């Protein structure tokens, strides 16, 4: 087990920068997730930690050891590849035993440790199978056992669930988490799936275009995203371009970009932006209050229903307010599904659930 420190890590492929000036500190035993869309640099970073790429600039430390240019076979990391990379010409046993044989373990020790690892992933009865005879989920478990059996300092998981169907994915998510808790091993998990990231991680680093946008716990990332990219990438949100009108000691007052008349009042601690920079207002659909009766007071708007989407547990409302469409989410209480397009509703943005953030996606990014 060990901590990982990345300092000023930049990786260039020819002139293209895949990762830019990355600083990260991953604690011992932590379940840490790299989250981002494809091509954001998360896999590149993981491969630098595994040793398959070397940073163009910057250093990587495991504990206090500088690992920046150590060969991959000397890092003692266990990696699970997206396609599992099981050796097709070997049995389950031979696959799992591979790392131990390389480490020149005694034969009896190899057998006990492989059996132990396979028991942990609940595959002990398939030990002599050829890997091609296994299902996707079973292959995934073999890959996990193979990575864990060598007792690595760090476990690296590269989108390990992306090739599985939805049910298996849920099951394996629990499985991975259980094993990680059991071994208490520092784990880096790469994914583009926000649900995986939010449910599994101790902390998450959100990547976009080679830059780390935010590092934080799932709750921090969801409730207090660093900017509009993070807010829109993780979960659903309403993003509205705004301008700061004025502020006093406790509150700030903002105006929607194309609405000069209405002023919204927001507590000061719900703002993460600096004055005079392009800003956006983010509010999650479940935080939007909706009512069929007229609402009074601050941050209220009148709108019309555009569409109601029934998803079982909840109902998604799309409400047209001026030029904007606001999404709201209400639990299924048989109130909304009968509503027709064009009916009048009132909505309110409770100040304590609003979050003001820098607009990094650029102008026009929030208009839907």
């Amino acid at each position, binding site marked *: 087990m060990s901590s990982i420190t990345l300092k000023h890590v930049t990786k260039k492929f020819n002139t293209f920068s895949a990762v830019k000036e990355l600083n990260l500190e991953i604690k011992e035993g932590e379940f840490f997730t790299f989250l981002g869309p494809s091509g954001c640099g998360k896999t590149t970073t993981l491969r630098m930690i*595994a*040793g*398959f790429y*070397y940073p163009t600039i910057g250093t990587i430390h495991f504990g206090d050891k500088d690992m920046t*240019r150590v*060969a*991959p*076979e*000397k*890092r*003692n*990391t*266990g*990696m699970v*590849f*997206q*396609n599992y*990379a*099981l*050796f*097709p*010409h070997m049995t389950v046993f031979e696959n799992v035993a*591979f*790392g131990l044989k*390389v*480490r020149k373990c005694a034969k009896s020790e190899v057998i006990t440790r492989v059996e132990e690892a396979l028991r942990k992933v609940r595959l002990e009865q398939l030990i002599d199978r050829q890997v091609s005879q296994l299902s996707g989920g079973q292959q995934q478990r073999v890959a996990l056992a*193979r*990575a864990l059996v*060598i007792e690595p300092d760090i476990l*690296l998981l590269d989108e390990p669930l992306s090739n599985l169907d939805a049910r298996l994915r849920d099951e394996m998510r629990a499985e991975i988490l259980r094993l990680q808790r059991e071994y208490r091993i520092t784990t880096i998990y790469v994914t583009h799936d926000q649900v995986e990231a939010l449910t599994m991680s101790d902390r998450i680093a959100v990547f976009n275009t080679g830059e780390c946008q935010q590092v934080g716990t799932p709750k921090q990332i969801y409730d207090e995203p660093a900017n509009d990219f993070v807010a829109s990438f993780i979960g659903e949100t309403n993003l509205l371009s705004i301008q700061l009108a004025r502020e006093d000691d406790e509150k700030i007052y903002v105006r929607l970009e194309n609405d000069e008349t209405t002023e919204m009042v927001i507590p000061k601690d719900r703002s993460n932006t600096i004055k005079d920079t392009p800003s956006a207002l983010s509010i999650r659909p479940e935080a939007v209050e909706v009512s069929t009766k007229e609402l009074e007071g601050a941050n209220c708007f009148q709108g019309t229903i555009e569409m109601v989407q029934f998803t079982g547990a909840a109902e998604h409302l799309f409400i047209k307010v001026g030029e904007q469409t606001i999404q709201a989410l209400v639990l299924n209480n048989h109130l909304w599904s009968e509503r027709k397009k064009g009916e009048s509703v009132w909505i309110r943005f409770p100040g304590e659930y609003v979050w003001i953030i820098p607009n990094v996606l650029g102008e026009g990014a929030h208009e839907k």
Partner: protein
Amino acid sequence: MRNKEMRFTMFLLIPVVLVLVGYVLYPSIRTLWESFFYKGSIGVGNYKAFFSPESLSNLEALWNSVYISLLSVLCSALIGIPLAFIFNKYEFPGRSFFSSVAILPMVLPSLVGVMAFMFLYGESGLIPNAIKDLFGLEKVPFKIGGVSGILIVHAYTMYVYFYMTVSSTIRNIDPSLEEAAFNLGASRLTVFRKVTLPLLTPAIVGASLLVFMTSMASFSAPFLLAGGFRVLSLQIYFSKINGNMEMAATQSVILSIVSISFLLFMRWYQNRKDYRMQAKGIGAHRSEVKNLFVKWTMVAIGVIGVIVLLLPHATILVLSLVLDGTWTWQTYPSVFNFENYMLLFKDPAIWDPVRHSLTLAFIATLGNLVFGVITSYVLVKRKFIGKNLVDSMVMLPWALPATVVGMNLILAFNERSILTFGHILVGTFWILPLAYFIRHIPLVVRSTNAALEQLDDSLEEAARNLGAKWFYTFRRIVLPLVLPGVLSGTLLAFVEAVGEFPTSVLLYTLNNRPISIEIMNQLRMFNMGQAAAYGMIQISLIAIVLFISNKFFGVKAERSL
């Protein structure tokens, strides 16, 4: 370390480049250089002589080579493409047997094949004479020789290229593509013209290229059948025999230029469009033939085809049982026994060529195996600048006709140099294994490339991640997984080395003369039986190797074509 990786790439790359430059590139350049020496001074005198209107023999040979090659492409296509369609689109009794017989010309070494055709359809051939006797004719009704002979032999041996490439494409065409066209209202003919045929373009282009280049390089057929007819590959041999090395070099250069130009033209033509299938669908289903008349016609064609295809093999077998000296003035041989085979074991002088062939092919193929695997690994899995250049050098021996490869070696290694460790190689045992080695570099590298490209990089990375060093990973992961691909190329290289004639005839010496040369010698002495017995040995060796590789390694040698 990054530098460590780079150093390691260099460590693998340098020997590869040294071998390629020393034994492939340098000899070719040597030939080019030689062609500019004319009567002791540097100039284009040889080329002037080649194209001079006064002695037309060279121009005539060039023209003959080109038009025979083009006709060979046409004839092979006309046989191979329809056969591929019949055997892959329709189901009828005996189909799978016929289709496996269809690749039999592959196990016939060129020289043996030509010999069989001579005895079958030549002036005193069995078939024309049989027809003559059967119908009481005055003269034989037909005989092959000259252009027609060469063309028939070419069509017989080379239609397989079309048959195999087109077959494999037909099998891979997603049937939903044709179904989509039918669904959109296209007629059968339109579907064939607008969908099926365009999808076959890469296969047809590839096969045309193979046939054209093989015909340009063809040596055995004109050698035995041409009579006074001139072709360029043969002219090179005659110039060399007459000691006119400069002219031989010039002819080599011109033959190579024609071959390589055709190669480049075909590459360009093929790359104009993208023919790759978007998704891999289920394999084509064969429709069963319902119409009884059509069905049995197809079976009849199949049976006749099998007979025609097997006749050469059968002829060689029969001839090998004929005691030499018992078939002279008679129309048909009458005495049959195993004397020719017994002699192989009794007379060391007769056994020697077999031993030589095996030794030479073994040494060359071993070299090919080691060199091929390293080269292919570097080309596919390692990054370095100048990859295209190395790749071109690897493919050069494929583009060069065998006779030219032979000439290159003669011109490069008839003097002492570092490359030959201070020896003169020409006239020694080692020149032939070297020639076979060079000839088959592309074959082994290409089949290994295909296998390595299939191998996902993540497997190697997974092994490294688990702590395995490069060599351990290579031995335990990479090699076992690519072995079938490597073996298919290597075994085919062995088979071809056993049958190799054109380079052998230019380079052999008394102490390494292989079977092919001995067949030629026996034919010159009119010892048909002994020649045929040698031929049978070659056929058997090839059949055994292909059988073993297919049975025990699951290797389909024909995949490497």
